[in-house]
């Protein structure tokens, strides 16, 4: 009886692990999609209102969820207080501080930080191109994640179940 119960628990645990990993993959895709949404909002607001970055971030912070809200609000404060010699430093530091909980892959984090190097520096036309370039790259990354996700989710779910069964067999 104990063996049966133990086996069931092991299989349940590994299956849950597999399912959690699959959910995490989906969650990661949602994070990238939300970042895209935030960047689109920033781009739209900058183009429409032509306002300085602090005003743009301030307005958008009201329309996004956490942790993006805190991230944008913190940037508003830092920009208004002119804490750094260049905006890129503020952008990079705030990403590290407030978006660390997103656990972005280094590629995605670097791409997002690169955007800060150009924000605010260029004239309207150049900045529109730069934003579009980042959004295109992000789109590609999203596509990559999306493409691999279906098979990865299926594999991880099954791997969880099979791994559990394998462990039970080994232990018995």
């Amino acid at each position, binding site marked *: 009886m104990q063996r049966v119960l133990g086996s069931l628990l092991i299989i349940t645990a590994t299956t849950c692990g597999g399912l959690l990993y699959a959910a995490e993959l989906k969650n990661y895709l949602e994070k990238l999609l939300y970042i895209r949404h935030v960047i689109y909002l920033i781009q739209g607001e900058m183009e429409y209102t032509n306002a300085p970055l602090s005003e743009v971030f301030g307005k958008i912070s009201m329309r996004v969820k956490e942790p993006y809200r805190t991230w944008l609000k913190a940037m508003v404060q830092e920009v208004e207080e*002119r804490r750094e010699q260049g905006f890129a430093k503020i952008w990079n530091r705030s990403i590290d501080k407030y978006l660390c909980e997103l656990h972005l892959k280094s590629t995605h984090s670097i791409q997002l930080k690169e955007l800060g190097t150009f924000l605010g520096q260029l004239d309207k036309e150049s*900045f529109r191109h730069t934003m579009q370039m980042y959004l295109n790259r992000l789109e590609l990354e999203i596509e990559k994640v999306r493409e691999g996700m279906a098979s990865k989710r299926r594999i991880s779910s099954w791997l969880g179940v099979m791994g559990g069964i394998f462990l039970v067999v080994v232990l018995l």
Partner: protein
Amino acid sequence: MDAEKRKSQILQVLAKSVRKVLEDERLDFTYLQEIRLRIGQPLRMIYRNEEKTLPVTKKEKCIVTKEEVRETMEYISHYSLYAYENELKQGFLTIEGGHRAGVTGKVIVEQGKVKNIQYISSINIRMSHEILGCSEKILPYITKNRQVCHTLIISPPRCGKTTLIRDLVRQISDGNTYVKGCTVGVVDERSELGGCYLGVAQNHLGSRTDVLDCCPKAEGMIMLIRSMAPQVIAVDEIGTQEDIHAIEYAMQCGCKMIASVHSTSMEEAKKKPILGELIRRKRFERYVVLQNEEKPGEIQGIYDERGSMLCKECWEAF
């Protein structure tokens, strides 16, 4: 505007090293008129109407670096140069408090028109001065039956025309012995009159004043007439053909005009192509000519529509 507020407004837009030099000087920011940063040249300022090289007390002067100019531009533009493209085309940006930062550098021209300024090499920060009550002496001359006359302020740069208009707007809007308080519309193309921040005027413009901030003057005047029905319209530094036509339109709509123009005398203003025509047709009822022989705000003369001088003596408005 109190001295501390003014000090913080100015210091916050300067590169940290330049900021330190100014802080060490222990200046009274009320008397600071200009700060000039030129790459490779000493840091200079105009203080109490006198040019000084900084630091004043030390032999070794502070030479402005390219990095300091870049940093200052970052602070002036709130790290958002794109947002000030239109202002940069005209060669200046207005910062919080209505202070003006003029810039020079490499001009990018597209189809014969200035598109932008790159590689900024010089910055001249000119302080805005709000002197409450500075227009009191001229009000009796530019009003009739407690109503303001169409008035043109003629002045070369740095003579205080913006300061004078700002106070005139406030007095006309609030009303006093000489003028009955009335609705004033201000088209503040360069945010100098109101010094607006997030759309709210930081300077005192009176309780019946509506400000169109960062709006081109000609369009703004027409927008105000249609939307806010002002009794008086005030604009600073008119110059283009469109501005003059809009002024004429506003006058025909029954609005009283308060405007200023860059010029040294009545004669010079009359020679200006379209404005001169307006003067010859006696559209303005009063002309206030300013000068800066000893200090800003000196009134050279006040004239009526026929060009007759209403007050002969030179006196200081501020």
